[in-house]
């Protein structure tokens, strides 16, 4: 009896090992009948079609591999666009969709070790600088110049919104934008429009209830609605706070969203001398910054209890669950909060506006010296270590075509091309998302992405703890910023920046 067990066991082991050793299964085709239909409907005019087939001919059968995050825009590009591209050119696209953390770690390792695993990578706007400082990426415009036969007639760098400027350096262009959002101010339009609430507010504060345009108004509104929620036994608070005491999102909200509205830009770091403390020419612990941080901490009392456990995720969920009357919410969430009944209970009741700002900030933003909020997004770039640069070049042009932008925007609430704003599909959706796209188009130039810090993650990692401790109430805003600026300077020095 035992002998049979052993034999069986042995056979199983052997077969397992053989299966494991066997050549990996063919790349999983993104099986989606819907995608094929979409591809059929998207049938570009015959000439364009044949151009792709012709251009792709020398590379047919090649598989390019890319890595991106598992968000709707990326998934759309992986599932729908990838399928379309393969049909048009014969080049296979293998998409690794992964978590936010790994999306950075793996390409960095790949490019650092020059192992050529990825042929295109997602470059978030705040990371482009790190990659550029290490020459990790290929200059796409230069590559196009070298290969005129691969220049698609449907692709034009000039058609993109100003967002593409983030990916330019010294005349070269290193990324093709694939998603972009602004982080606006969201508010409960239904609550703000309620006549009883309006009357009560007017009585208490002496002015009309409207989306906040400065911090005092923001505070008043937060205070009002928190009290309102208590009095009426509702699960409603006056504001959201992205204050998870152990997650980078909290640091981001402070430096990218709050501080700029107080006039402290680029995290308060002097980009010429690489200093952060006021004593050395920086602004991270300036009075304005401390005021801003204190304001933000003050908001905790008007935020729901999960605020100190909220990342961008929970903030969106909090708002979508109807628990907050106003807040700063990332644009990519604004769309589904306003429209998706499976995930939100406030559909149709969401208002979108520019964030409240201190005096002088709008002027700074208009002149280009500053900005009022965060312009988020990313592009696809081609690593220097890639072994299939030409095939990848075709891919990035494919996703950068004008013709694919509208449906992609509908699926992922992202716009990177000027013309997409005018597309009838988008105009229609714009109404449903309370004019988010209109706001993005008109006020977009007032927002900006992350500061050009080549050591983005490292620096943020070093100031995180101070911010978190302040949020947990262990230290106050001023102490936190004083400590943070010193840590920031030490880090920069250690990395070889600044004196």
């Amino acid at each position, binding site marked *: 009896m035992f002998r049979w067990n052993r034999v069986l066991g042995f056979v199983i082991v052997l077969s397992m090992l053989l299966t494991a050793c066997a050549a990996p299964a063919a790349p999983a085709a993104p099986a989606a009948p819907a995608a094929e239909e979409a591809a059929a409907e998207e049938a570009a005019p015959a000439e364009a079609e044949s151009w792709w087939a012709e251009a792709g001919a020398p590379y047919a059968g090649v598989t390019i591999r890319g890595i991106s995050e598992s968000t709707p825009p990326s998934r759309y590009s992986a599932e729908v666009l990838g399928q379309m591209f393969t049909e048009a050119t014969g080049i296979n696209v293998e998409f690794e969709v992964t978590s936010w*953390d790994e999306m950075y*770690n793996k390409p*960095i390792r790949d490019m*650092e070790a020059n192992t050529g695993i990825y042929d295109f990578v997602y470059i978030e706007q705040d990371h482009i600088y*790190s990659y550029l*400082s*290490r020459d990790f990426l290929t200059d796409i415009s230069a590559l196009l110049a070298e290969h005129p036969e691969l220049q698609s007639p449907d692709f034009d760098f000039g058609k993109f919104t100003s967002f593409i400027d983030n990916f330019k350096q010294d005349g070269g262009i290193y990324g093709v934008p694939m998603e972009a959002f602004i982080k606006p101010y969201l508010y409960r339009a239904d609550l703000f429009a309620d006549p009883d609430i309006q009357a009560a507010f007017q009585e208490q504060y002496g002015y009309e209830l409207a989306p906040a345009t400065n911090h005092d108004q923001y505070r008043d509104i937060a205070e009002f609605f928190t009290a309102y929620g208590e009095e009426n036994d509702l699960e409603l608070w006056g504001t959201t706070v992205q*204050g*998870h*005491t*152990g*997650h*980078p999102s909290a640091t981001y909200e402070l430096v990218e969203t709050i501080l700029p509205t107080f006039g402290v830009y680029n995290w308060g770091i002097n980009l010429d001398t690489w200093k952060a403390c006021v004593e050395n020419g920086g602004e991270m612990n300036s009075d304005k910054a401390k005021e801003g941080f204190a304001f933000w901490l003050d908001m905790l009392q008007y935020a*729901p*209890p*999960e*605020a*100190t*456990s*909220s990342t961008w995720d*929970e903030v969106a*969920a*909090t708002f979508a669950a109807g*628990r907050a009357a106003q807040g700063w919410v990332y644009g990519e969430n604004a769309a589904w909060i306003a429209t998706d009944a499976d995930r939100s209970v406030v559909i149709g009741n969401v208002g979108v506006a520019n964030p409240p700002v201190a005096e002088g900030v709008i002027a700074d933003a208009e002149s280009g010296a500053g900005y009022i909020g965060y312009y988020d997004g990313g592009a696809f770039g081609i690593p220097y270590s890639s072994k299939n640069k030409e095939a990848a070049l075709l891919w990035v042009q494919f996703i950068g075509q004008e013709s694919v932008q509208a449906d992609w925007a509908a699926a992922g609430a992202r716009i990177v091309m000027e013309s997409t704003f005018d597309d009838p599909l988008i105009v229609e959706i714009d109404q449903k998302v309370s004019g988010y796209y209109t706001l993005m188009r008109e006020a977009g130039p007032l927002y900006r992405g992350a500061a050009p810090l*080549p*050591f*983005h*993650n*490292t620096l*943020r*990692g*070093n100031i995180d*703890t101070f911010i*978190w*401790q302040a*949020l*947990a*109430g*262990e230290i106050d805003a001023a102490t936190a910023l004083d400590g943070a600026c010193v840590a920031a300077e030490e880090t920069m020095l*250690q*990395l*070889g*920046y600044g004196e």
Partner: protein
Amino acid sequence: MRSNRMGWGLLAPTLIILGIMGLLPFFYVLVVGFFDWNVVSATGKPIWTGANNFRRLVFDPNFLGAMSRTLLFTVTVVVSELVLGFVLAQALVKEFPGKSFFRTIHALPLMVAPIAVGATWRLMTVPGFGIAPYYLDRWFGIDYNIGRYAEHAFATTILMDVWHWTPFVTLTMLAGLSALPKEPMEQALVDGANRWQVLRHLTLPMMMPVIITTTFIRLMDALRVVDEVYLLTGGGPGDSTRFIGIHIWRVVMTWTDYGYGSAVSLLVYYFTLVLCWLLFIALTQIGRQQE
């Protein structure tokens, strides 16, 4: 008789695999620990820095804080799990109806992936949406908030780890207990010893090898904990649950400081080694005394 060659031959596959997968990376890390290497530094290349990384370590409050936290966590967790696991194993080794069912149930937490454990506990304990804060507030009026109060977060990580890993101890103890011969215990009971004496003088000494092994494994794993806690608290509030595993993760992944990260890892490795060695000696001494 049977030559030494056969002995080595049986051992060889193990040594080869572990040598490649374990020894080579270890040497790599050892070497890198002497370099100043950060992917995003101005040069981006490794620069020789001698023992600088190690010197930096000794005075680094982040590191020292993480180590002390980890030690406290580990000791609490391992002791709790050993005691609880042993008690449960004793209960489950007996014959009673539904024994298989209970055994399977009690082994369940072990089967859940650490990141799923972290995620589940996070969902249970997130203020506002989770059942724990909600009911604790409704029934007992306790303000339970792991994002705000460091003690709550720390206690929750301990609870989570005990929940997750006690079955491990239970299973190994169960195997050990059931492999023990019955006669000595029965004989002793017949001779008039009570249960407690049987336990102390017979069962425990005979279980020593299993207890030692289990303690070691749990000790090592608890010192290295990352996924579960990371998902639960991210190391927060502030850094109150940032254990050394998470600290190293941050250094290597977030800061991309490979040089410093390697140095920290080496030190922790060495520390674990010494700790285990001491414990090993202590336990075998006790074991010898019992005989």
